[in-house]
């Protein structure tokens, strides 16, 4: 058995419709852990069943019987501050609902592995902004987990893919059409690093939209056949029933050319046959949008010196629809590869977590041995390069680790793999341009590699100005100057100025964005060294007392 000298870090794919958890076994291979129902993926559905909270297949099936007690697709509401699910007088935020899903995954994994699940890497769409990422991290914390890292889903998929492919260098386009979100990402894989070149997508476009088109069609057909004019979706039971039927029909149409569907409402029942051709007609525009995003991303990639790609890989359950492959083959003249669509993301996260753990351990060993402080994995590579740490020491530490942990030496040495990401959003500050119009000046542009630190000088507008209001804005353009309407304010900060400061005094603003997309901002009035530090902890995410309460409540609730 594994001697377990290192802490295990699990990888979790927290999906809109399905979630899964994975770990790396003693052979260095990522393995999905089946849940207590012996399924490899768990529906991301939460059912508030009186005392208990049920997550997964049972919850999903319960939606028909108890539509008001079941929450699905919660990921779409992550980072939405005003979404509240109310049940039995209690109010739940999306973070807490997601926490129940995470708790179920961790619980089942613990049961299976017979060890506590504490440290995890959770994935989120590349397209998630600061709010949504922070919300995902909070969900993990509410579930009592130590969230070691939030990584992008396409990156995770690429890591899983890269771990299998042995070729040296490769540019891969990851087309990730999940249950609720769509991401398209260009990734450069080499032995040393997985590097995100460019990313794009829409976090309101996913398999569910395909389902919804079927639902709307069914409603229309039902009205046509029965002459009923009311909207049958106003009945929550019917809504849930149709939602499930639509999902089943969609899946079935990936295999067959037509599928029968029955609709029951108010004592009336009709049966109809949905043909693949009709389905494709109903969803043509959705598919077009994914192609369009892909083209846009390719343009951006070209501008960054990546005019072509070697592989086109499909991730996410919705890519099983034959129309996706057909359309991509036609539009890009390439045969895309379907790569482990349901599991790649969780596995990639697990591999990433495993490398983190190995790294931690290697660094611990090396600093013990050499008595040198190594802050981060990157510094370690640098130190080896500069021969501050000898290759021999490194190899020795790696061997000791391999020996004690039971992992093979090459896999331990490979743990030095680096993941380099880009930001999917631009970040800027509200300022006035020379024409005295209010604009946003973007310091960090989207698709810039992270971590990044950018400093820029601004100037006070008036003599004896008392304060500077710094409005930190997130947007999705690649332009430096944009109108204020085109961005969202994620945080405000005030810098107090000393009195009698002349007009045009310089204020230096620095944006620092880390690998996970966390933003740290410093503003400084340079002449008097007046300074403020702002960590963007985002107002729209659960925090304070509400956060603590959710944590207590989640610990209290039994999750089945």
């Amino acid at each position: 058995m594994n001697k377990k000298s290192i802490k295990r870090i699990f990888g979790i794919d927290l999906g809109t419709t399905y979630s899964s958890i994975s770990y790396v076994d003693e052979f260095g291979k990522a393995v999905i852990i089946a849940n207590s129902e012996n399924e490899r993926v768990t529906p991301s559905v939460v059912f508030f069943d009186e005392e208990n909270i049920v997550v997964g297949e049972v919850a999903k099936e319960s939606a028909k019987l108890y539509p008001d007690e079941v929450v699905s697709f919660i990921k779409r509401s992550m980072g939405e501050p005003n979404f509240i699910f109310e049940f039995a007088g209690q109010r739940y935020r999306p973070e807490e609902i997601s926490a129940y899903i995470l708790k179920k995954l961790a619980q089942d994994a613990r049961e299976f592995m017979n060890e506590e699940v504490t440290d995890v890497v959770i994935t989120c769409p590349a397209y998630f902004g600061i709010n949504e990422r922070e919300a995902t991290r909070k969900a993990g914390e509410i579930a009592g987990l130590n969230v070691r890292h939030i990584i992008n889903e396409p990156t995770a998929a690429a890591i899983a893919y890269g771990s299998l492919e042995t070729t040296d260098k490769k540019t891969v386009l990851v087309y990730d059409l999940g249950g609720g979100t769509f991401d398209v990402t260009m990734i450069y894989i080499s032995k040393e690093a997985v590097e995100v070149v460019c990313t794009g997508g829409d976090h309101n476009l996913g398999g569910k939209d395909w389902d919804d088109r079927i639902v709307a069609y069914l409603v229309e057909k039902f009205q046509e056949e029965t002459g009923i004019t009311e909207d049958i979706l106003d009945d929550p039971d019917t809504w849930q029933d149709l939602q499930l039927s639509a999902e089943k029909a969609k899946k079935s149409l990936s295999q067959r050319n037509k599928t029968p569907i029955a609709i029951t409402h108010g004592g009336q029942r009709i049966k109809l046959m949905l043909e693949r051709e009709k389905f494709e007609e109903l969803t043509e525009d959705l598919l077009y949008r994914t192609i369009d995003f892909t083209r846009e991303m390719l343009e951006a990639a070209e501008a960054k010196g990546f005019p072509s790609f070697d592989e086109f890989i499909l991730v996410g359950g919705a890519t099983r629809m034959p129309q996706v492959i057909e359309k991509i083959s036609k539009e890009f003249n390439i045969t895309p590869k379907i790569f482990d669509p349901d599991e790649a993301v969780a596995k990639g996260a697990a591999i990433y977590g495993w490398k983190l753990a190995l790294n931690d351990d290697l660094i611990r060993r090396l600093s013990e041995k050499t008595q040198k402080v190594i802050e981060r994995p990157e510094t370690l590579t640098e130190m080896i390069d500069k021969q501050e740490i000898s290759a021999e020491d490194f190899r020795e530490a790696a061997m000791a680790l391999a020996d004690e942990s039971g992992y093979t030496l090459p896999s331990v040495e490979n743990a030095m793999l680096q993941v380099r990401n880009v930001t999917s959003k631009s970040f800027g500050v509200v300022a006035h341009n020379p024409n005295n119009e209010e604009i946003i000046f973007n310091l960090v542009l989207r698709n810039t590699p992270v971590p990044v630190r950018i400093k820029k000088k601004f100037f006070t507008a008036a003599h004896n100005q008392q304060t500077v209001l710094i409005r930190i804005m997130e947007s999705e353009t690649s332009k430096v100057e944009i109108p204020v309407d085109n961005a969202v304010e994620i945080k405000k900060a005030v810098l107090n100025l000393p009195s009698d400061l002349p007009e045009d005094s310089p204020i230096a603003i620095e944006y620092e964005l880390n690998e996970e997309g966390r933003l740290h901002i410093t503003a400084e009035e340079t002449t008097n060294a007046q300074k403020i530090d702002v960590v963007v902890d985002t107002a729209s995410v659960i925090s304070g007392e509400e956060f603590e309460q959710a944590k207590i409540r989640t610990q209290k609730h039994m999750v089945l």
Partner: protein
Amino acid sequence: MERENFYILLELSIDPPETDPETIESAITRKQSEWSRMRNHPTKGLQAQKYISMIPEIRRVMNDPDLREKEAAAAKDSNVKDKTDKIAEIDRHIDILMGKGYISKEDIVRLAQVHEIAENEIQDRIRIKKDEKYTRIDQQLSLRMAKGYITEEEINKLAKRHNFKPEDIKSRVYNPMLKNGKTKTPSAPRQMDRSLEKSIRENLKIVDKKSLYDFLSLHESTELEALQEAAIEKKKQLASAGKKDARVTAGNTLAGYCVTIFKNEETRIAYDISLAKSRLAELDSDIDVSGFNGKIRNEYYEVLVRKAMDFGMEKHEAERYIKDYCKRKKWTIEPPKGTKRKLMMVAAGVCVLLAVLSTAGFLYVNHREEQAINRQYEGLIARVDASNNVDEQVSALRQFIQSHQGDKKYEALVDDARRRIDIRLSKKDEKQYAEMSSRVDSWLRDEDFDTAKSQIADYLETNPPAQYVANARKKMAEIDSMAEKRDFEALSRIVIEADIAEKIRALTDYIEKYPDGKNLSQVKDMLNDMGNEYYIYVENALEKAEADKNWEECEALARGYIELYDNSHADTLKGELARYRQNIRQEQVFQALQQKATHAGEDYVRARRVYTDYLKAYPNTPIKKRIDEEVVRLDRLIRKAEAERMKNQLADMIRSSGGRFIETGEGVVKDTETGLMWTLLDSAATADKPCMPFDDAAAYTEDLSTGGYSDWRLPTATELSNIYKTDPAFPVLEEKWYWSADSYSGYSEEWYKIVDTITVSPGGKAMETRRDSRECGVVRAVKD
């Protein structure tokens, strides 16, 4: 752009305006959770998302007394506006219903229902309309007078119609339809899917636009290419928007639609038609009002056609639209009254005469050719008539139509052929209906309602014409009501006589079978009254099923009850349900394991591993006990198999012991040198445990009964060493040690026994040792 009024959105009182902060806040939280629930609704989700994002703004406005006051005032205004809109609609509906010349009490009740207002309000409107009508007639007269004179006919017409003038509305609601005139579409244009139309409408509502053209800010006559470009531009514009709120999401969806819809003329025309139709939604609501008892009176029909024409449709388009609409609603349109038809036919006759006169010269020139054509046609008709098969007849006629369609010379004959087809098909339809009808009647005589119904259902599958469909459905309904009556009577008997489970089954069967049954409410009441009684039954049945570990049955019982009742018992059962499900899953797991184990056949070791592997993976599984039992059972089998193997092996070896040992009977070996009888197998192979302490060993020999003997005992140390130490020795398969009967007492901290034992190994020398009696050893029993 106008946003929703918060008072109306929150459903707060406007008159007087609600000002209590607590009431307002609770309305906001209530709506917040309601919208959150709707957040992922397939068609209304975006709207909900939009409302959710408005919450901070709603709080801001509603918590500020000044802003709130303004909001309340605006709510009043918009209410007034709503009311005027509504009155216009009611008036229109009154106009339509008056199309037949009067308005009945029934009509008034119905209108009151449709518009959710009191009947007297409708009556008020009718009175006002009557007054208005006189004013309008005056207006009309003056209009006619404007040209200098007015004919009596004109006055008569006005007087005759004395309701309302279509011309009036014409000027009010004129709205040009898409009739460019230049491109006549020869085939029926492609239809846009209705659910897509609806989705586009919903999304347009969110961005506050009227059409995709409006969305792109382009005119409806814009060229395709420009539309495409605008759509892509629009998408880019949306992509640069910072927020990803409902409006942007709707915008993205619409831009996607624009690209797919404006990709070619065909799809664009489909959309244009759909757009025109959506403008006709108003017309639809008028048709809805006219439909009554599944029928549209002819008077209404004509009014509707006129109205549709006012929207810019041609007459035949209007007729088709209304007919299609009614078909979807399964409504029939009453045919026009006989007198009118006669009148029209006279008029038509005159027209034909005129046409004949004006084309006489042409007719003359073509006379000969025409004769030939006619003869050819007559021949065809003769052949058609000779056939008895309607399908053949129709196909021959169709062939004729196909080959001569569009040829001027054949026009009349093609029309004639069409007519003949119609007649034949309608006769066929009539015959089919009559046949079905008589079959159904004969089943009804036998009171076999189900077969009768299935006959009708089969008939309906054949897509018969509308009037027969209606009749067939009527018949179906009659049968239902007969069957319902019979079943209800039977039910009444069951409810008195049968046991509770049977009663419940009968009642639920009834409800399922007759969702609109006459006695439905009575049956439901009966069912409700049985809630307690049935629960006691379910409880007992559950107890029994639980004892039998029949979890599926448990689940079915509990679920059955929960589906029927919503009471405290049902709540209790809901709690149990999770447990049953868990048990079912475990039972399935266990069965799967059993099945997998069975696959191993007689390889009990492999079968055992199936269970132990599972236990290793799930050490706390609820089926641990059962798995343990299986493992014990398999262990026994494994040992038994092992014993059998050893027995054969030992027997072989004994045969080659040079005659000293002879197997005398089943499992008994005689030492010919001493005359002692030994068991072939030792306790390791035959007992439940592979080894045992000394006291158990003694008991084991005492109870042993094998080879037909029961007087077995523990051997003495001398006896044991004799068979193992003197050659030819007793065969040894593996290393182990045997208890002898010789024991001594010893003391070390407490009293204990020491026993002489002998250790043997294959090919090795047997050795004597003394051991603590509590150690675990093997026994080979002996008898004299």
